[in-house]
């Protein structure tokens, strides 16, 4: 096989050195009755045929190359500049292992340090780790930190937090006697989803609450006013966890300024197309008081034996390979390469670029709202939004999604799949790609559904 360099002659020489006659002898520890099963598999395809097969499978999809995408829900169809993928293809990055040998891993280590710096700047918090699997597991592990540091087991999650994240958090919480209370902080009115955050959320928070989980912009795209909820949480000694889209953070107040103790979210859309939702990369940032409870890898700056600046993985005693059964997280492999791509893109965007990008999303979303006014689509709550909003439709949302496919449009996400009472609600998201022309196409296509 192509990827195995040894020839029969090599194998003969090596067997001789070992002092055995055949490779079969090396497998004699395996119970004989189970050795060498006759696997029902095809023989190898040539590289050309493998590629043809994968292309054929790819062609069975309607990809975002063909569709105009207004679907979001945490997964946004951004244009990522070409240089990002070109650099991620540097094999010194993608074929290297976790940087446990710092002398020959400075590239990865310094990039992690820069990543951590940017996440801290973006969220206005003190410490960030090298990444989590995705936004969902980042939230689940943030809750573990809150439970371990407060010694409390009651967790309040606003209903407007990404339902997929909440679902992962529930799975992680279930074996640890953590009670998750979902605070239903929205209602459905005549005009659509109505946010009623403050009162219901506050009423769930008390002296037994380990943490309160909020999202900004929330899953519907709105900026809820959490000031009194956060105040209430602080008064009760609960940890405040805020989930958030990193692009929107180019414009809106960062979680650190709002009083969040931990901020988590998903970075995939800064790195490439949604890839059916994985691999993503979860960011995890917190205040210095939780430094020793942070899950996963952290890089730090130090000096080498000649006094030169260098980087290492540090505070390693938090991690599973050292702390073993006393570790509160088992994370080992993370999403380093995706985090690297996000670092490169954030660096190139910089202050001006990220604001500009977020603003393009904002302008396109507002343009759409202006154009939708007056027809039978409704917007619900009059809250500020950045790039996404739920649209109350005259027909079930899934019918719109199915129908607009023939126009080459993915008009959004059917919210009925998460909340049956929102079956007539379409979650519509905007990026720099959904420009004036795109918005017009959407409006026309929706108009035909009235």
């Amino acid at each position, binding site marked *: 096989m192509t990827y195995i360099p040894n020839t029969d002659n090599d194998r003969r020489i090596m067997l001789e050195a*070992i002092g055995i006659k055949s490779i079969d002898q090396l497998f004699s520890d395996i119970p004989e009755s189970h050795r060498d099963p006759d696997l029902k598999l095809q023989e190898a395809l040539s590289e050309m045929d493998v590629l043809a097969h994968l292309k054929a499978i790819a062609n069975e999809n309607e990809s975002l190359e063909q569709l105009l995408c207004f679907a979001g829900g945490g997964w946004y169809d951004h244009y990522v500049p070409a240089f990002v993928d070109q650099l991620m293809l540097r094999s010194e990055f993608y074929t290297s292992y976790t940087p446990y040998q710092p002398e020959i891993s400075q590239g990865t280590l310094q990039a992690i340090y820069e990543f951590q710096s940017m996440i801290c700047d973006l969220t206005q918090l003190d410490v960030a780790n090298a990444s989590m699997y995705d936004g969902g597991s980042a939230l689940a592990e943030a809750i573990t930190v809150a439970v371990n540091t407060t010694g409390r087991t009651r967790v309040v999650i606003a209903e407007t937090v990404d339902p997929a994240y909440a679902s992962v958090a529930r799975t992680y919480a279930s074996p640890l006697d953590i009670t998750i209370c979902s605070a239903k902080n929205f209602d459905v009115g005549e005009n659509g989803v109505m946010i009623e955050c403050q009162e219901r959320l506050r009423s769930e928070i008390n002296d037994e609450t380990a943490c309160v989980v909020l999202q900004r912009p929330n899953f519907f795209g709105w900026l809820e006013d959490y000031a009194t909820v956060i105040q209430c949480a602080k008064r009760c000694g609960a940890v405040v966890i805020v989930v958030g889209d990193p692009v929107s953070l180019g414009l809106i107040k960062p979680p650190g300024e709002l009083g969040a103790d931990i901020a988590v979210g998903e970075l995939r859309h800064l790195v490439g197309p949604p890839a059916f939702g994985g*691999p993503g990369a979860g960011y995890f940032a917190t205040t210095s008081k939780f430094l020793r409870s942070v899950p996963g890898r952290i890089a730090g700056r130090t000096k080498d034996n000649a006094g030169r600046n260098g980087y290492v993985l540090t505070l390693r005693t938090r991690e599973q390979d050292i702390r073993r059964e006393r570790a509160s997280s088992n994370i080992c492999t993370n999403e380093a390469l995706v985090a690297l791509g996000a670092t490169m893109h954030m660096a190139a965007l910089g202050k*001006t670029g990220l*604001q500009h990008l977020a603003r393009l999303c904002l302008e396109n979303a507002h343009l759409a709202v202006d154009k939708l006014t007056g027809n039978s689509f409704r917007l619900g709550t009059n809250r500020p939004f950045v790039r996404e909003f739920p649209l109350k439709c005259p027909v079930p949302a899934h019918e719109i999604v199915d129908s607009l496919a023939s126009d080459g449009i993915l008009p959004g996400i059917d919210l009925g799949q998460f909340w049956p009472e929102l079956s007539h609600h379409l979650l519509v998201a905007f990026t720099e790609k959904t420009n004036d022309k795109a918005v017009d196409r959407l409006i026309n296509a929706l108009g035909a559904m009235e």
Partner: protein
Amino acid sequence: MKEEPVIYELSSPGRVGVQLPPLRKPQKGIDEYLPTEEIRDELPLPEVSQIDVVRHFVRLSQLNFSIDTDMYPLGSCTMKYNPKINEVTGRLSGLSAIHPYQPDGQIQGVLKLLWNLQGLLSEIAGFPGVTLQPSAGAQGEFTGLMLIRAMLTEKGSPRSKVLIPDSAHGTNPATATMCGYKSIGIPSGPDGEIDIEAIERLLDDDVAAIMMTVPNTLGVFETRIEKVCDMAHTVGAQVYCDGANMNAMVGRVRPGDLGIDVMHLNLHKTFSTPHGGGGPGAGALCVKKHLIPYLPGPTVAIDKDDQYFRQHSLSKSIGKVHSNMGNFGNLIRAYTYILSNGKSGLKSIADNAVLNANYVRVRLRDRYDLPFDRTCMHEVVFSGTRQKALGASTLDIAKRLIDYGFHPPTIYFPLIVPEAIMIEPTETESRETIDRFIEALVAIADEAEFDSSILRSAPVSAPLGRLDEATAARQPDLRYSPR
């Protein structure tokens, strides 16, 4: 080495490295869209041009060792060649430009690929059920123990203990804790295998599972694995297998046939998806029939018209472990790899991986202590105690290998071997490369005898010398701040 500045130090106000579409004219203030109290004041990100970013990261990349640089003999990590075709298929827009919330009808290809891959892994590992949701091996372990917990809970009690060999990866005991279990250590016997008598002593009806690694982290195949499975099942416990070492078995034995109930496969090890400097990985989880009802949803299913669909809720599911359906990008690569190898190719992976490891074992056993001198599987564990007595620790040997152009092996693991040096050559290294590696370790053994200070001052040819990890931990500097 010329020091590479932190990207922030390259910043110059007003610079931007991307070419975005223009904003609308006439430009409105942000406060016409958002209330002022919602608008952020400061955004202290660096301001650099695209060429600054590109050169910075290319220069950083040049400071890294990688598989594409030279042999990377990290035990238990399976640093094999990452085929380039995988990067091409993983980037096909028809597979990567897919939104996770697109309706099933639009993504038949995606679902078909998942379905096919589940089938291939099921056949290779010998388990009827597969979930591709876990993002990495450790999340596979978590998912696996959660399935066991759910099944046992339904039978009356989740039980409280998990038995784990003292040679296990740290993720195993950490996973047990996350799943609400107490870890109980099982000592290894004198032959390097799990101690059956110890299991007999420790096993009772409060044990939920035995977590094993096969072959174990000493590189030894557990010859009594079937007996261990029988013993566990007799008291109603389950056997979890950490599949980090599947590269030794692929095509040669199906772990499911040995009686194991649950096993994860690290697709970034055995199935060649790149490690990416620490991730992303993919930890497919394989289960026996009795655990299928508890798998995380959604799962892929096929209807009578051959249409694939996402089945959202299995009745007894433990819930989701991933925001979507796993690291699909990695799954495309693993699928590509399995098709590229085919039936005979997969078997020759194990054959050559095990041959290469035994060749290293035999050629180095005169120069390095070999605590368990028996046929090994895909990796071999030496001990640096002889060199330690001469003043050169295993860490020194590892660092000196850098000067010979190789990545160090895994060191100080497994914990039960003093001064452990764990070598996994993988099947993708040639005899000549392995000979070069062996010669380097022989030369280092000579150096240790001649003047061990050479080893203690290594590496001398790397971009940096040894780093001060104590100061890094005592005075953590974890983010850039202008100084």
